[in-house]
């Protein structure tokens, strides 16, 4: 009797567990839709880029990439990313810290401003800089007098890229920092840590994943930005063409394979950063599971019988 009851209870439990899940057909329909969508709209186009790039063979591909103008575009793109991403990491951290940890007047305004680059069309963003720094712009005369070039030059491209990619790091960090509160930082302070130590050992590691993700998004956009950069660059071949601009130019000049070759390299850079992130995440989860495997110990704290700690 008792055994029967137990088994029945067990079955009931299993049933109720199944009851909370969706029916099998719904599960597989959803999975299929998601998979198909990714396949058709994400995976196939990407594969096609590589297929087109290699359609005329390896030597054409190699030649397209090593062409001096393409090579200069690649170098410029990497330079722009190398400057704008670190800048935005610093700005993003500062803005996220201010918003998450302090109460101040104008906080709502700051949050809105951070979102501005998302809501403004990149072309408008580019024009903003032209209006400011162009020859006819506010500072144009002064800059010209001092022989400084921003528009139609590398500084303009960097400025536009920094503007466009500004929200990525801050937006990733704000919710994480808000959720974490400032308890951990205060705990560090009570243990004697100064502001810098607290930031380095406590704040930064606790937002590490958000920061890495923000950097990846920021980097992908910095290398891939077209609109704003197109307005400020002036399209000077071999000087102010970034990879996206170079790709467009090649494509418009009917150099399909060359355009796709540069495009494939740009896509590859994005894939590498994504792969890097996956590896880091995998390493972290491995570390967690290894820690989990350590044997559990008895609950009751053994204090009292064998004397305390000296010197406290």
């Amino acid at each position, binding site marked *: 009797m008792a055994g029967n009851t137990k088994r029945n209870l067990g079955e009931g439990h299993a049933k109720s567990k199944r009851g909370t899940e969706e029916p099998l057909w719904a599960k597989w329909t959803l999975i299929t839709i998601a998979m198909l969508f990714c396949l058709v709209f994400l995976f196939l186009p990407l594969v096609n880029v590589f297929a087109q790039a290699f359609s005329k063979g390896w030597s054409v591909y190699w030649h397209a990439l090593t062409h001096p103008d393409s090579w200069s575009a690649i170098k410029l793109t990497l330079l722009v990313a190398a400057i704008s991403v670190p800048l935005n990491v610093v700005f993003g951290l500062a803005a996220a810290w201010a918003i998450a940890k302090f109460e101040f007047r104008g906080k709502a305004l700051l949050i809105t401003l951070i979102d501005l680059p998302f809501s403004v069309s990149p072309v408008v963003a580019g024009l903003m800089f032209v209006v400011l720094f162009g020859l006819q712009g506010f500072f144009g005369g002064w800059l010209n007098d001092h022989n400084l070039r921003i528009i139609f030059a590398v500084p303009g491209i960097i400025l536009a890229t920094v503007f466009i990619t500004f929200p990525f790091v801050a937006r990733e960090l704000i919710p994480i920092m808000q959720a974490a509160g400032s308890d*951990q930082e205060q705990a560090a302070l009570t*243990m004697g840590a100064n502001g810098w130590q607290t930031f380095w050992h406590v704040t930064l590691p606790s937002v590490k994943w958000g920061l890495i993700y923000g950097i990846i998004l920021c980097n992908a956009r910095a290398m891939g930005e077209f609109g704003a950069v197109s307005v400020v660059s002036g399209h000077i071949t071999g000087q102010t063409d970034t990879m996206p601009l170079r790709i467009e130019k090649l494509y418009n000049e009917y150099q399909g394979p060359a355009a796709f070759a540069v495009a494939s390299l740009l896509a590859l850079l994005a894939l590498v950063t994504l792969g890097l992130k996956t590896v880091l995440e995998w390493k972290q989860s491995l570390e967690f599971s290894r820690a989990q495997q350590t044997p559990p110990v008895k609950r009751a704290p053994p204090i009292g019988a064998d004397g305390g*700690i000296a010197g406290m």
Partner: protein
Amino acid sequence: MSIELKSITKKFGEVTAVNNVTFSVNEGELMALLGPSGGGKTTVLRMIAGLEVPTQGDIFINGQRVNDVPVQKRNIGFVFQSYALFRNMTVFGNIAFGLKIKKWKKADMQARVMELLELFGLSGLEKRYPHQLSGGQRQRVAIARALAPKPSLLLLDEPFGAVDAKIRQELREWLVTLHSELNVTTIFVTHDQEEAMEVSNRIVIFSRGNLEQIGAPREVYEQPANEFVARFIGVMNVLDTEVQGGVARVSELQFPADGQAEGTRLRIGFRPYAVQISNDLNLYPYRAVLRHTFFLGIMLRLELELPSGLILRSRMTKEEYAQLGLEDGREVTVRIRNFRVLASEGSALPPELEASAHRRPTIAEHI
């Protein structure tokens, strides 16, 4: 480490969180800051730590004014209500953090952390991350971390708030043992009067930013300074009476009120232990019916109903209960051995305080 607070006031904008509070903590004491939430007790703790700066008044540690001494230099251990463990660090990393900051030698650090892990029953968990620990384990890591750099003062904010009842009991007893072992001056904040009574040497009671009373658990229980304390600490019968012919009356109950003017209203309070019960229907002045018996381990709590419908609470041991042959529905006689006047006014009495809601059976009743 001895601490002295002199006329401390803390304002957050327009709100006065702590109002002109003065008290001191002696070297080696285990002190509770007790009060309902919003009472200002956590703010006081944070000011002692240096996490908040008083708006007015001075804080002295070992006789030295520390108002301007930053939190890093006060040599304190602080345990946060949320524990605030470093999520990205292992148990070892958490406990070693303060030592790393203080630049301990690697071998010393290792030894110290291992010693604490052993003492706190955490051996074997040093490689785990906080999210892989139970609530009680996290709590102990938080205390171990605070104690690691050998602070001369341990501050705990609602240390047992976030763990379940059984663990809470274990941790309380353990804190008392820990304190007697380490003899480090300890101050903890709690809203649970039972916890404060059981754990501390002395209790400071706060209400709405004011210090209501300071004293040993027995003192605040037996000689509450005011109505708030009387009702917040332990269970109390509270009756509003009116003086007629030198006697304070409510329903059939009478309390001597010598020297009180006719018509004065007195709020009278007495502990359950002051209500004596007899099965001899001629022994005590008031008749009553035993309505309910609540079993709380070896002590029983009794609810008695007078003919007028007035309810009195009493308590006795199982043995006394058996000797008197009591059971629910039984008729008995009662007397009230002693009482306190909690408030008196010519006309209206102040409205009942919130604390009266805390009327669950408590350990205080057993004293």
